[in-house]
C-alpha cells in the first residue's frame, strides 16, 4: 500500500513537471508581451528594457524555466533598484501585476473554491444519488418520470441564468439572503453558509441532473444483477436489498466521476459561478492572469488545478480499493 502510494506520488510529480513545461512554452507562444503591458502607455525603450530585466524576461526560456523550478526549493529575490520582493521556497514566482508571491495568492483564493466546490459536491452527490435511487426503484412510474424530466431541465440550464435568477429572487426580491460573498468558515460559520448558499444551489442545479441520471442507470444495471436476485431470494426486505446490496455496487462507477468533478471544482472550474456571484476564487484568478499576461500566476493556477486532478485521481483509485475487494492496489 505504502509503496503503491509512493509510486503514484512520484508519477504525479512527473506529470506536474510536464504540465508546467507545457504551460511555460505556451505562454511565450502568445503574442502579448508582459513587459510592454506592465510598462504602460508612455513607455520608453530604456524603461521597457528595465522592466524586462526586472521580470527576468531578458533571460533565455530555458534559464527562466530553470529559475522557476529552482524556486520550488530555494528562496528567490526579485526586483530592481526601487522595489525588491523576497519569495520564500517553495516559490512559484511573483505576480507581474501585484508583486505578491504566487503561493500567497493561491493560498488566499484556495479556501473559496474548497468551500464552494466541496459544499456543492456533497449536496449534488447525496441528492443526486438519492433521486437516482428513487427513479430506479420506481422505473416507469411517476416518480421516475418526474426525476428524469427534472434532470433534463436542469442539464439544459446555464450557470449565469440560474445564478442570476436565484440572486434576483432571494437577495433582491424576497431579501431573505445576504448578497453572496465568502466568509471563512472558522471566522463565522453562519455567514460562511449564508454567503455560499446561492452559489452552491446554482452548481447543484447544473450537476444534479447528471448525477441523478448517472446513479439511476447505475442502480438499474445493478438491480438486474444475479446477486440482487440472490439477496431477494434470501428473504431480505427490499429496503435492505436496495440500500445495502444495490447501492454498494452501484456507487463504484459514480465515485470515479465524482472525484474528478470535485477536483476540477476545487481547481477552479467553477469560474463562471465565481464571476456571477463575485467570489474571488482560483478560477477567476486564472482568467485574470491570462488576460494580464501574468506568467507566474498563470503557471501557479494551472499547476494548482492539475495537482488537484492528479491528487484526486490517486484518492479515487485508493477509494476503489476499499469499496471493491476485487481491486488490489499494487
Amino acid at each position: 500500500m505504502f509503496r503503491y502510494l509512493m509510486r503514484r506520488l512520484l508519477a504525479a510529480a512527473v506529470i506536474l513537471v510536464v504540465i508546467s513545461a507545457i504551460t511555460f512554452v505556451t505562454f511565450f507562444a502568445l503574442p502579448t508581451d508582459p513587459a510592454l503591458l506592465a510598462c504602460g502607455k508612455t513607455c520608453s525603450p530604456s524603461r521597457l528594457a528595465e522592466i524586462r530585466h526586472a521580470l527576468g524576461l531578458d533571460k533565455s526560456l530555458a534559464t527562466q524555466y530553470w529559475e522557476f523550478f529552482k524556486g520550488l526549493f530555494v528562496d528567490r529575490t526579485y526586483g530592481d533598484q526601487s522595489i525588491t520582493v523576497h519569495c520564500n521556497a517553495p516559490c512559484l514566482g511573483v505576480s507581474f501585476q501585484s508583486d505578491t508571491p504566487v503561493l500567497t495568492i493561491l493560498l488566499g483564493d484556495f479556501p473559496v473554491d474548497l468551500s464552494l466546490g466541496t459544499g456543492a459536491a456533497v449536496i449534488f452527490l447525496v441528492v443526486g444519488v438519492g433521486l437516482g435511487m428513487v427513479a430506479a426503484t420506481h422505473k416507469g412510474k411517476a416518480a421516475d418520470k418526474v426525476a428524469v424530466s427534472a434532470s433534463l431541465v436542469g442539464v439544459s440550464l446555464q450557470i449565469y441564468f440560474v445564478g442570476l435568477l436565484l440572486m434576483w429572487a432571494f437577495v433582491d426580491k424576497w431579501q431573505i439572503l445576504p448578497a453572496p460573498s465568502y466568509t471563512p468558515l472558522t471566522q463565522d460559520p453562519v455567514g460562511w453558509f449564508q454567503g455560499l448558499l446561492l452559489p452552491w444551489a446554482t452548481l447543484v442545479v447544473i450537476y444534479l441532473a447528471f448525477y441523478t441520471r448517472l446513479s439511476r442507470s447505475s442502480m438499474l444495471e445493478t438491480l438486474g444483477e444475479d446477486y440482487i436476485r440472490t439477496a431477494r431470494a434470501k428473504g431480505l426486505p427490499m429496503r435492505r436489498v436496495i440500500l445495502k446490496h444495490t447501492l454498494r455496487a452501484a456507487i463504484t462507477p459514480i465515485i470515479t466521476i465524482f472525484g474528478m468533478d470535485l477536483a476540477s471544482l476545487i481547481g477552479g472550474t467553477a469560474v463562471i459561478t465565481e464571476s456571477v456571484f463575485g467570489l474571488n476564487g482560483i478560477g477567476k484568478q486564472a482568467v485574470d492572469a491570462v488576460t494580464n499576461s501574468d506568467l507566474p500566476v498563470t503557471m501557479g493556477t494551472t499547476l494548482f488545478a492539475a495537482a488537484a486532478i492528479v491528487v484526486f485521481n490517486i484518492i479515487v483509485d485508493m477509494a476503489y480499493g476499499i469499496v471493491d475487494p476485487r481491486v488490489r492496489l499494487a
Partner: protein
Amino acid sequence: MAIELPPQTADGTAPSAFLDVRDLQVHFPTEDGLVKAVDGVSFTLEKGRTLGIVGESGSGKSVTSLALLGLHKGTRAILSGEIWLDGEELVALPEPAMRALRGEKVSMIFQDPLSALHPFYMVGNQIAEAYLVHHKASKKEAKDRAIDMLKRVGIPQPERRVNDYPHQFSGGMRQRAMIAMSLVCNPELLIADEPTTALDVTVQAQILDLIHDLQQEYGSAVIIITHDLGVVAQTSNDILVMYGGRCIEYGSVQDVLNHPEHPYTWGLLQSMPSLSSDVHTKLNPIKGNPPSLINLPSGCAFSPRCAFKDRVPGGRCMTERPELRPMAGNDQHIAACHLADDEKTDRVAK
C-alpha cells in the same frame, strides 16, 4: 376454540402433496405482445423426493422456479394458477408473508455462483445474513452457523475461508458456498437452477452428490432444473419436460427415460452423446429453434420441428393443441401428443 379451515383450492380438492402446483401461468406483458413464459404447468412433489424439470433455454423452467420463490411479485409479471406449499397458497400470498418464507422454507441455488454471490461482501457475511434475516441471533452466532454450514458442504478450513470474498473461491467452492447459503435455514423446499452448468465435469458430480446427501439429511423436497438429462437420471425421482412454457411430458424418471412418449423427449435423448455409441456416429440434434413465446405455433408448439407430425391424420398437430393424457395406460406417466401409441414403434430405443 379456533377452527382451522381447510385450504380452499380452485376445484375444491385438498392439496395432494407437500408442493402442489396447479395450472401455473406466468405471463409478461411486453411491447411486442404477451410473453407466455409459463402457460399452465401442474406438478406435485413430496418431501424427501426430487423432481427434475428439463427443457431448452426459454422453455419456462427458470421462470417456474422464480414463481415458487415469489420473486415475480412487484414486477410486471402476471401470475395465475395455484402453488400450494405445505397447505399455504403462494400465488396470492402478500409480499411480506412471502418474504418470510423465502430463504427460510423455500430456497434456491442459482446457476452461476460467481454472479449470484455479491462480489463486495465476504462469503461468510452473505451466509450469516441469510440466517439473521429469519432468526433472532447475534452476529457471532450467525457467523458460527456460517462456518458450520461451510464445513458441512465440504469447504476446507471454514474458519479461515468464511472471511474470504467470492472471487477468492474456486468455481466449485463458490457453488458449495451458494449451497451452504441456501441451506442455512434448513429449507423444506430447495430449488436448484442448473446448479452444475457453470462447473467442471468432475466438480459437477461432487455438487450433485452433495445436494443429494443434504437432502437425505434434512428431508427436503428438491427441484433440479436442468437441460441435462444425465443430471436428471442421476438425481431425480420424477421428471417434467417443458417446451414453449408448457409441460409436454411428466412421469417417473424410469417411465420417461425408458419409455419416452413425446417426440421432443425422444429428440432430447437422441441428442445426448453416449459413451457406448461409436465415436463416428454423429450427434442427432433436434432441428429448428425453440418457439417464440409471443406467437406460439397453433396446435402443438413442437409441431414445426416434429418429424412425426405427418403420421397424425388430418393435420391435427398444426390445428389442435394436444392435451396431457395418460400414456400406455399408465396414469402416472402423461404426455401431450396426438401420435397414437402404435405409431411410435420406430421411436428411439432406449
